[in-house]
């Protein structure tokens, strides 16, 4: 009889401990690193899909944004939907080449585009400059993703 009572009491005393153990177990699971990443843009968990941002609209023709640093490739101040840029055709150069800019009134490409990597000047656009979109992209009204106190150098302000 006595041993039975002691056993019951012991068991009763152990119950909360067991329960507690279980709680800490589940707490531990919640803390398991699921491969998320915490950065300036906030915390992202691998198992959660973030709501996609709205598409950025490319505004109709407007004057180009000011350069932020020296030698920045200027942004494209207009729509370029379906403009072909391939070995067959270069729609950009049909307005911006030295030859065509006179008639189209578009900004001429820079003379640097005629030079090879070694600085040799060619009679036409250098192959390394042919694919315009490697450096130039259409400008959109996109605010910086993170707080940023970058300022252009004095000469550009």
């Amino acid at each position, binding site marked *: 009889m006595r041993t039975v009572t002691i056993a019951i009491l012991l068991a009763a005393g152990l119950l909360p401990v067991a329960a507690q153990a279980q709680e800490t177990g589940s707490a531990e699971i919640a803390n398991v690193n699921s491969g998320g990443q915490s950065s300036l843009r906030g915390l992202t968990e691998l198992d959660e899909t973030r709501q996609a941002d709205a598409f950025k609209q490319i505004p109709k023709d407007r004057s180009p944004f000011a350069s932020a640093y020296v030698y920045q490739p200027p942004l494209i101040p207009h729509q370029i939907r379906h403009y072909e840029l391939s070995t067959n055709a270069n729609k950009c150069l049909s307005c911006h080449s030295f030859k065509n800019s006179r008639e189209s*009134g578009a900004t001429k490409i820079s003379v640097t585009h005629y030079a090879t990597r070694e600085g040799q000047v060619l009679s036409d656009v250098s192959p390394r400059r042919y694919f315009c979109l490697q450096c130039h992209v259409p400008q959109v009204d996109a605010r910086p993703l993170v707080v940023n106190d970058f300022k252009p150098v004095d000469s550009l302000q």
Partner: protein
Amino acid sequence: MKLIRIFWRRLSTPSKAAAGALLGMGFVGGILFWGAFNTGMEATNTEAFCSSCHAPIVTEIRETIHYANRSGVRAICSDCHVPHEWSDKIVRKVQASKELVAWAIGTIDTVEKFEARRGHLAHREWKRMKQNNSQECRNCHDFDFMDFSVQGQRSVAQHSTALASGEKTCIDCHKGIAHRLPDMQGVEGWQ
């Protein structure tokens, strides 16, 4: 001799019933023919029909403005390639019979053959559009109703000058509006 004369009279003065029957048959036949003819013209205007021989073109057109755009209004192959004027339409359809011959020979039946011949075909199409002052474009885009206040600056600069004066027509400036281009070396205004 007399027999012949009687027979001739029979022939030259048909009974009213026979004349009626003849007229009726002619009328019904005419309607059937007209219907079949126009149905044929319509059926050969669908995208599915063109795609049976121009598969590569149909896949690449999907990214262009005349396939998908904000307003959902579309231009299909025949809008740009088959004239609306009835007489022009017939002429183009008869010309298209030539395509059947080319198809039988297999001038563009592989992607490689098509790419090799593409420049030639494109030049033919540019020439045709230049000659008819880009009539197909103008069936939808009427210069008289272009509102310059809502067009981009670049569009206004060109449309209010070279286009307005008639010095240039749509296809002079909008080559490749619906397709990928062939090698443009030597084409006026390019490279």
